[in-house]
């Protein structure tokens, strides 16, 4: 390289080592990919795949509109309503259950490191726990149906909401609560009058954000029997009635889009109100 022509330029300290390191990283990445590709049977595609794909697309473009409303029940609209009900009720439960976790996990309210650490650990454990498995456990308890879905979403959302809220509390301005403490307010009074008013906008905003996730989640929980539109979808897939699969897919897309849109609007308003 022409940097040898510049006399003041010191040579790089460990060129050999860095070059080896780059090659090593590259080799590891290639090895990982070779290993990953070896595990997926690309050749084992069903002969009928192309025909089924055509049938699926045909169904998607010719949805079974009759399924949207059936007089005797078990139709698309009722399925979507149940899905939304599961998401809304589940989110509401988790919004209340989150409060103690959020307070316990925030370092500026709880000074005992061990205590807040235990809460952070519990929250991350809940976040890693797959919602589908939780749904299966709740189905064992209350039987298959929408209520199992509600409980799953109610418990499973605590993980994320607790983390976000405790971080938001840690970022709060502690001025007001110190002022209250100086006036002789007790712990509960400080939380109620200094922390809560500041935390409310982000708390509601997180709840709406989680509602968006939970609508998607409620749409699939039915696949293991926890109510909502997932159950008829699974039946339609298994029965290969593609026009019905098509109309259910469209229904889910419309529901999720509407909820995202409303929730996004409300969240923007909350953020503006806070600023």
């Amino acid at each position: 390289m022409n940097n040898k022509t510049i006399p003041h330029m010191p040579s790089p300290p460990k060129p050999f080592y860095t070059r080896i390191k780059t090659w090593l990283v590259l080799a590891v990445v290639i090895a990982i990919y070779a290993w990953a590709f070896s595990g997926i049977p690309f050749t084992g595609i069903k002969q009928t795949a192309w025909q089924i794909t055509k049938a699926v697309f045909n169904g998607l473009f010719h949805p079974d509109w009759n399924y949207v409303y059936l007089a005797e029940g078990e139709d698309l609209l009722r399925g979507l309503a149940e899905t939304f009900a599961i998401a809304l009720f589940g989110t509401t439960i988790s919004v209340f259950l989150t409060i103690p976790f959020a307070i316990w996990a925030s370092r500026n309210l709880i000074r005992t490191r061990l205590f807040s650490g235990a809460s952070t650990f519990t929250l991350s454990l809940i976040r890693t726990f797959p919602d589908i498995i939780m749904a299966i456990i709740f189905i064992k308890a209350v039987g298959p149906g929408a209520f199992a879905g509600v409980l799953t979403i109610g418990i499973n959302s605590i993980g994320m909401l607790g983390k976000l809220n405790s971080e938001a509390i840690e970022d709060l301005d502690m001025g007001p609560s110190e002022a209250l403490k100086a006036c002789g307010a007790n712990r509960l009074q400080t939380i109620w009058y200094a922390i809560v008013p500041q935390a409310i906008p982000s708390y509601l905003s997180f709840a709406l954000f989680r509602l968006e996730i939970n609508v998607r989640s409620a749409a699939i929980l039915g696949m293991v029997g926890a109510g909502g539109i997932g159950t008829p979808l699974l039946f339609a897939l298994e029965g290969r009635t593609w026009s019905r699969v098509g109309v259910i897919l469209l229904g889910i897309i419309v529901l999720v889009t509407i909820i995202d849109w409303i929730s996004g609007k409300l969240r923007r308003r909350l953020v503006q109100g806070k600023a």
Partner: protein
Amino acid sequence: MKPSEGYPVKPSPSLKKWMTLALLLALLWLSVRETEASLSELIGGIPEMGKFIAKMFPPDWKYLRVVLKPMIETIQMAILGTTFGAIFALPISFLAASNVTKGWALRTPARFILNLSRTIPDLLFAALFATVFGYGPLAGMLALSFFSFGILSKWAYEAIETIDNGPMEAMTAVGANKLQWIYFGVIPQVLAQFVGFVMYMFEINIRAAAILGIVGAGGIGIYLNRTLGMFRYDQTVVIILFTLVIVLAIDAVSSRIRGKLI
């Protein structure tokens, strides 16, 4: 009402607030009815749940040998799914970013595809691909590819829209074409961030991959379903714990790499 003491007075905000609250409560009441929630059912179900959990112990640790291979398959599905999702996400995120694609004729359809793919949950993709391509890890890989595509491209185009426009203006001034412009002006600014997104997506996909098997899309989820069906909860708990350990380990490695990149 006159604004006194310099404070702006809002015209009766309380009515609107009460209406919102009433609407929310009405929706909630309807939800409770729709889902047939009952506290007594929950309390009555607790012993059932207790029995279920009691049956998990002691865990059948020998079952680890059986689920090792599907667990490896799960990781492979997640690696490839994330990669294919990322490969397709990058070009479309350029089309969706308003500072790269100035014309709406390309940008609007690109954003439409993104929004559409993000409305469909991962398990739904998996169920769809499993019926089309047959049960197995290929369906899972495809499901994760589509799922990652939607999320990654949204993150990527939002990152692209926040970059510094100085280098690109300089390049336009010296006559660079669009491809040169993207390659030398945009990519260097977003690459590290994009790799960070991909690693994070990989963490999400490992969790997702572990359950895709429930609808037949390969990986450890198949065994989860099987052990539950045979009431071998002592084996189910082994799968759950194994999954948690793997997810936590990969999270730790991946967030370390992400920390180095950013």
